[in-house]
């Protein structure tokens, strides 16, 4: 009986998402029609490019890879009631740390240097989020504000690093030296750039899923996220949980940066992130703050973006259309949660 109830809830949440997604597509279609573009054909192309054919799917997954990381990183924090907007900063520091290991430890073989670079990236990201975590847990400084501010610090700092101490002379754009060939993540389905980072991302999804459902930390973070007052009365160390969650979130955010450096760019390129960290917020929200949900949402967004780029190339429809679709989806999803909440409240007041 309970299994049926659970499944029904799952179906309902998928159905609700489908409605939201359709609404966004309609808004997008309206925009295209208004600007005299063939909407139906555009969507057909977008779908084909995103999902039909091995190379197309590979490109979708390639685009989705950093989004999986940042989505899961954000979801972990949100689930514990911590509004971590600092994944973007963790991503930058992690990317640089991975690049640094990659271009410094050139003598090491791949099986050593790759884990080392990933670890360095994770630690860099975790340390970045440690500060806001401690401030939130023990001094009640709003983590939204500190993480937004510190994002700039991380972005400017890494930019400084590749413009000055680790600058490569003679290049138009600021970037670090190239990582050693041993540190390059192997490709999965050449010629696509899709690489081992996807496997790491999937491993992170599985690991976080297990952490959330099977470990004491997962239990603690769900308790703190669902009712911190209750958690405190029960003796769960709320402050320590918040700090641990921020460390975990930052670690995964750092891995996102490492994935881009070791798998795609092979160096730290100034301004390489179009806001992957912020996308993580959207993805976590769409995925209802679960790792599996974030995975699905990240693949969907990867498909939109990968398809959007091609549609722009071939049909003269700006890929910014995808951003409009994303914004619409976010609006509807967050409003929908709000509606849920007010309905619950009214129910509670009446009942």
């Amino acid at each position, binding site marked *: 009986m309970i299994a049926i109830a659970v499944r029904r809830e799952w179906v309902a949440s998928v159905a609700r998402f489908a409605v939201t997604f359709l609404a966004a597509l309609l808004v997008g279609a309206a*925009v295209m029609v208004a*600007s005299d*573009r063939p909407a139906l054909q555009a969507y057909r192309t977008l779908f084909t490019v995103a999902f039909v054919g091995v190379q197309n799917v590979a490109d979708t997954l390639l685009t989705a890879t950093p989004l999986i990381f940042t989505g899961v990183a954000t979801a972990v924090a949100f689930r514990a009631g911590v*509004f971590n*907007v600092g994944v973007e900063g963790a991503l930058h520091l992690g990317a640089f740390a991975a690049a640094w290991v990659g271009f410094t430890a050139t003598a090491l073989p791949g099986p050593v240097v790759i884990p080392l670079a990933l670890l360095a990236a994770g630690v860099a990201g975790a340390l970045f989020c440690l*500060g806001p975590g401690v*401030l939130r847990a023990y*001094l*009640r*400084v*709003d983590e*939204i*504000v*500190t993480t*937004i*501010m*510190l994002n*700039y*610090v991380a972005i*400017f*700092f890494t*930019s*400084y690093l590749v*413009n*000055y101490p680790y600058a490569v002379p003679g290049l138009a754009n600021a970037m670090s030296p190239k990582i050693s060939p041993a540190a390059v993540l192997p490709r999965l389905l050449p010629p696509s750039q899709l690489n081992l980072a996807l496997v790491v991302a999937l491993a992170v999804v599985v690991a976080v899923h297990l952490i959330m459902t099977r470990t004491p930390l997962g239990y603690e973070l769900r308790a703190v996220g669902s009712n911190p007052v209750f958690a405190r009365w029960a003796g769960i160390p709320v402050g320590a949980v918040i700090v641990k969650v921020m460390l975990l979130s930052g670690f995964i955010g750092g891995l996102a940066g490492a994935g881009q450096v070791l798998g795609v760019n092979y160096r730290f390129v100034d301004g390489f992130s179009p806001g992957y960290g*912020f996308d993580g*917020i*959207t993805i976590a*929200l769409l995925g209802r703050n679960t790792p599996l949900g974030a995975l699905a949402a990240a693949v969907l967004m990867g498909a939109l973006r990968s398809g959007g780029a091609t549609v722009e190339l071939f049909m003269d429809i*700006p890929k*910014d*259309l*995808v*951003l*409009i679709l*994303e*914004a*619409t989806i*976010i*609006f509807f999803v*967050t*409003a929908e*949660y*709000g*509606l849920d*909440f*007010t309905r619950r409240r009214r129910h509670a007041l009446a009942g």
Partner: protein
Amino acid sequence: MPWLADLGFATVRLTAPIILAAMGGVLSQRAGLVNIALEGKMLAGAFAAVLGSFYAHSAWAGVAAAVATGAALALVFGVFVLRLRANLVVAGLAVNILALGGTGYLLQVLFGTRGAFAPQGLRGLGTVHIPGVDRVPVLGRVLDGHTPVVYLTWAVVVLTHLFLSRTVAGLRVRAVGEHPEAAASVGVPVARVQYAMLMIAGALCGLAGAQMSLGNLQLFSYNMSGGRGFMALAAVFFGQARAWPTALGGLVLGLFDALQIRLQTTVGVPPQITQMLPFLAIVAALTWVSWRRQVRGGVLAP
């Protein structure tokens, strides 16, 4: 000291959009709504200003379009947040994404470019020469010859201060932001006050955008707000949502912005370090404030 005057002039110029948006942030924050959407509204305003000026051949038509666009976007934000109870931060980020996507889309559809749009003969705001001021040493060169919007910016700061501290409406805004239940209990229409503040904030962001795109460069480029909305938000937090301290915060951020070029060429300080410092300073200031509050509240007792 001509370089000092140049630096001052650049600071005043670069600061104006940040301060305008920050005053919008002050008004909405005082009404109880942290405004993450400043960035998007600035960007949309910048684009609308260029559109208006380009099609109507008048800079002021551009300004009007920018103000209207900012307010309209704020209305959408307000409906989602106040009416549909959307999460404030998430909806704010959605506005920013919508503005980035919308301006990018239109830029390409209308003008066929992905980068900068700087048509021949686009009317800019022009500069104002104030007779007399230019003869004051140093300060004259700092203050003279800005666009009207720059001067308007400082008028807005004064007005924001007076509005909040002196007017009946300002009193109600403060009450709504701090204790909405108490305000409602004496018949203050809470939602209406919040809508009004959001829309004024939107209009100010639009004006800020117009200064960015028509003030000095007369062009629109993709994502040209480049985080200035978040700088404005930082200034609001730095100034704890009071008009003058926030303006001061904005000025400091603008100064660092202007300083980075100067320090780089003269002393060799990397511009990124200069840009990084104000954000670190804001986090440090927030930490200090909380630390003091907790120590005084006795929460840190052993």
